[in-house]
């Protein structure tokens, strides 16, 4: 049920005309139908009529529309960009839903019921009562080698995926290894080959998760989905097996050995530091008393 204007405390006057979560109910129903179809056919790209959103394409309009259709007033929303809650993109999308839906928001992965993400999967295992919404720039994994949409659709429908391996072959012949580090193609439930959006391949194994995963591409007008506990296999060669690689170092702030790291340059002298890209995960570990090589105890740091 949509809340009335009076019940939405965060709503300023200019937003008062909008429906709950900005989109009108008919549009949300259309998007929900696409989501349900996507869940019924894991990895299949469902066309949908993408709407104009009050933000430019490339700012996650696909993800925003999927989130808008998935949100209920009781939800708690978390928005991350490259793992961080405090980047411009994440902040502006979070504010957008605070304003238009009046939902609670959080930075804590465990507290969120809906998480919209760009380029990362949270480190903390997600649960069955959570939904992860990905922002997708290019949904078609075959696009790189086959520009024709008619032809790629046919390839999907006939399961002709040899071309995906041509891409990996080219990678190895040029770089000596599969150099694809982001948007690493996967096969879902032994059927559809899917672009997991530009997450690092480190995150690929996490896609076999308990939560629902929804993918929205605004400009390309596609929605696809992976239901809970679905098989997701990263493509590879027998003699060049898939590896979920990351920087071979622990986090300098919290000492985590198992999290995906960003390399940060600290000063003009080029001093480097590895830190968790998932800021909530890092903070949580530091709160729990873990300290990395260049880290300090959490209370001190916050002061």
């Amino acid at each position: 049920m949509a809340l009335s204007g009076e019940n939405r405390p965060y709503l300023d006057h200019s937003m008062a005309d909008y429906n709950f979560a900005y989109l009108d109910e008919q549009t949300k129903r259309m998007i929900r139908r696409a989501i349900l179809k996507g869940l019924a056919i894991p990895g299949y790209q469902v066309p949908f009529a993408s709407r104009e959103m009050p933000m430019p394409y490339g700012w996650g309009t696909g993800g925003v529309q999927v989130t808008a259709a998935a949100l209920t007033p009781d939800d708690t929303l978390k928005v991350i960009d490259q793992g961080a809650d405090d980047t411009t993109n994440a902040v502006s999308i979070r504010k957008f839903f605070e304003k238009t839906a009046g939902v609670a928001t959080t930075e804590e992965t465990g507290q969120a019921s809906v998480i919209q993400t760009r380029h990362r999967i949270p480190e903390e295992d997600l649960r069955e009562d959570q939904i992860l919404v990905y922002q997708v720039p290019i949904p078609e994994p075959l696009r790189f080698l086959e520009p024709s949409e008619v032809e790629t659709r046919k390839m999907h429908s006939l399961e002709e995926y040899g071309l995906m391996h041509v891409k990996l072959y080219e990678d190895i012949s040029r770089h000596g290894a599969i150099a694809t580090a982001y948007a690493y193609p996967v096969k879902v439930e032994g059927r559809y080959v899917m672009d997991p959006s530009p997450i690092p391949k480190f995150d690929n194994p996490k896609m076999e998760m308990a939560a629902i995963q929804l993918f929205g591409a605004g400009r390309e007008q596609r929605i696809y989905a992976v239901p809970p506990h679905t098989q997701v296999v990263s493509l590879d060669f027998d003699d060049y097996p898939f590896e979920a690689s990351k920087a071979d170092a622990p986090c300098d702030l919290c000492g985590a050995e198992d999290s995906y790291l960003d390399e940060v340059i600290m000063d003009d002298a080029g001093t480097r530091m590895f830190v968790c890209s998932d800021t909530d995960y890092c903070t949580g570990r530091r709160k729990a008393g873990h300290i990395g090589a260049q880290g300090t105890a959490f209370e001190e740091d916050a002061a």
Partner: protein
Amino acid sequence: MTPLLKVQNIQKLYGKRIGCTDVSFDLYPGEVMGIVGESGSGKSTLLNCLAGHLAPDAGEVMFDTRAEGMKDTVTMSEPERRMLSRTDWAFVHQHARDGLRMNVSAGGNVGERLMAVGARHYGDIRDQAIDWLGRVEIQESRVDDRPTQFSGGMQQRLQIARNLVTGPRLVFMDEPTGGLDVSVQARLLDLLRGLVREMGLSAIIVTHDLAVVRLLADRLMVMKDGHVVETGLTDQVLDDPQHAYTQLLVSSVLQV
């Protein structure tokens, strides 16, 4: 012996214009059939109907499939037909760029068909690609170069390697030597003849170059205005043409 391909009464119309009509013939394993005729006589239309690129308006194209024997490729399901075209069939286009992926390396181009039928060992795929490049006289050192860096003749040889790597049983070729310099043509023809003999390939070659059919084709089919006007053993047709049009063709008046 069962024919590999049994073509019956194939017709393709473009609106009211005849593309080709009433074409029937059998092709036996190991046989090379040449199709000649002037520009617009329906050669490409016929070839594309046989190879499943165009749907004929009438007729049957029976192919001796491995699994189920003689089967009409016109009425079989699209997945089945597409599977044939990347396993048992090969198609060599006149323009290499229609038959190659120009933004993929030579090795990737040759390897594609292997990967399409399930090859998943990089080292094996690459070894086979290099072996095939050698067979079409392209140096191993060019395996990672893109076709855009190749000459026209090399592109055509690469296209042939890409097509033959999975050991097809039937090769369709549309003007495989068209658009190439005469000296380059001769080398390509030699190469093709060698491969056809060595692999015992069955092939249907469309050309309007009589030298090509003399060298490669066992049998010849002459087309005019969409109709077959004469067929027979290549040497017989060329040395003793029966139909007035063939006589004209052979007397080189119509040769381009």
